[in-house]
């Protein structure tokens, strides 16, 4: 790999161009492969597309750039604490609007750290919700018959249907 390459350009699913540094791209295996392809191929003009929309990709790249120094070198504990605080701030976002997109992107890009973080954030937000709110954010329909509801209620007195 040529050492002169410091950043690569990728396209989002909306067709916007984004730059991501080589060290940040290492947080994701698929991105890393893509990077190697770009650097080793003779035809460097082709810009790879990532199946993630622009709004989400901005956030994913922001996460990668922030986490890259620690992931690549293993920084001190005080940095780890600072990074944890940054993660909390970073995750302050709307569930349906962007968090689920980030979750899917992290899954697709094999980014374990971000996937973990997004799952945990979603779970924390869900704790205070009602069943109907959960159905709404996950787009699910109540498919229980009234007999089944009654049975479930008997088994688990703590569950509710609204």
């Amino acid at each position, binding site marked *: 790999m040529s050492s002169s390459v410091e950043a690569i350009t990728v396209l989002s699913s909306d067709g916007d161009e984004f730059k991501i540094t080589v060290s940040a791209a290492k947080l994701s295996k698929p991105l890393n492969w893509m990077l190697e392809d770009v650097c080793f191929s003779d035809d460097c003009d082709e810009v790879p597309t990532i199946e993630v929309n622009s709004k989400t990709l901005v956030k994913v790249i922001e996460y990668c750039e922030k986490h890259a120094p620690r992931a690549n070198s293993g920084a001190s504990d005080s940095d780890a604490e600072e990074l944890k605080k940054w993660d909390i701030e970073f995750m302050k976002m709307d569930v349906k609007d962007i968090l689920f997109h980030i*979750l899917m992107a992290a*899954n697709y890009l094999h980014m374990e750290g971000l996937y973990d973080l997004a799952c945990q954030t*979603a*779970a924390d937000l869900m*704790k205070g919700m009602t069943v109907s709110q959960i159905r709404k954010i*996950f787009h699910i329909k109540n*498919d229980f018959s009234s007999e089944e509801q009654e049975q*479930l209620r008997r088994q*688990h007195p703590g569950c509710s249907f609204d």
Partner: protein
Amino acid sequence: MELPEDVISEIFSRLPAKSIFKFKSCCKSISNFTNNACFALKQAQNMMLKGNSSLVIQGRTFLRRKTAYELPGNETSSSGIPTKFLQFLDKRKISIVASSNGLLLCLITRPKLVLVLFICNPATQSCSTIATPACLFPTVEFAFVWNHSTEEFQLIYFDQNPRQGASSREFVCKVYMPKEGEWKERGSLSLNEDRSKIYGSHVFYNGNIYFASCFDNSSYTRRYHFMSSYNFETGVTRRVHYPEQVVEIGYNRPNADWHYWIDIFNWGKAGTSNDDESICVVSLVHLSAFTIWVLTDLESSSWSKFLSISFQEMGLEEDAPVVYDFKIMNGDSLVFISWSTKNVYVYDLLGAKGKRLEKIGQLEADQYVSIIRLEKIGQLEADQYVSIIPYSSTLRSCGAGAKRFRYEIEK
């Protein structure tokens, strides 16, 4: 955006068991995957990484009333132990002996002192009975640990070798695994001195079990305190000397042990595979300051002093509280109960959260008997009048023979 089921399952596995039960009624697919044994295992594993979210405080000797408290950062009632369940235990005079990752080891005292031990999970309402061990519990401490290789819990205790009498230096290690369904001898250990005692918390870390121990040293007319470790695989017992200052305060000063209290805990976040994980010893000296030492090397008994802090330095407003019980939870939070105000406090040892000292609740006045004599507290092997039991809301299984239980509370 619609998420695939495996991603939804991944998110759900990070919820406390209580919330999972609440959301079972969303739809059939959620109800189905949350019933799956693999999902339960994953959820319990995730909760283990997160640490215990709440605790139960139980009166130990007289009234056994139990109250649940949430640690800071946990929304109330989402992850705690069901109150109804605690009321049920109180009513039946059942006490909690130990806890591990959402499972509780409970003890019922039936008439004529028939003792029954069982494991239960309050969240899944399942339980299984444990064969009664041939020891003098309730004086025995149980170690309740999760065995990663068998993916089952196991119970361990040390029994003074009955063949050699009560002053024996020999202890037999007894282990219970739910698959075997009986207590089995797993080696023995010798503490080298007669009239040795094992007391305090039994802590499992890295294949070893650690426990506080002491023997009467007639030449010093004082007790000599030390920590012992026992390795299951090799059967090796090791005497781990406490840091010099701990020993000095412990037995060189006259009557020092009346105001002196030490216990052993796990240190650092479990399962994060960093080097911070270890064992720590916490001493409470003259009821005024906590000192925490972290074990850095087992073989050479090397310790590093992590912190020494007085109540004043913690920011505690009451003067010189007498502490009922203290415990390090999740390897980073010091929980203690003040006798004078009955307040329950958590002190964040790593300072990762904004406010370090937080009051998480107050015991009710009638909850604990007020006849406790001041000088009794702090006595090393005295009954601790209340105990702190960590809890985490998990789907952890009680073992193969587990039964569902129902608890009815009169309205």
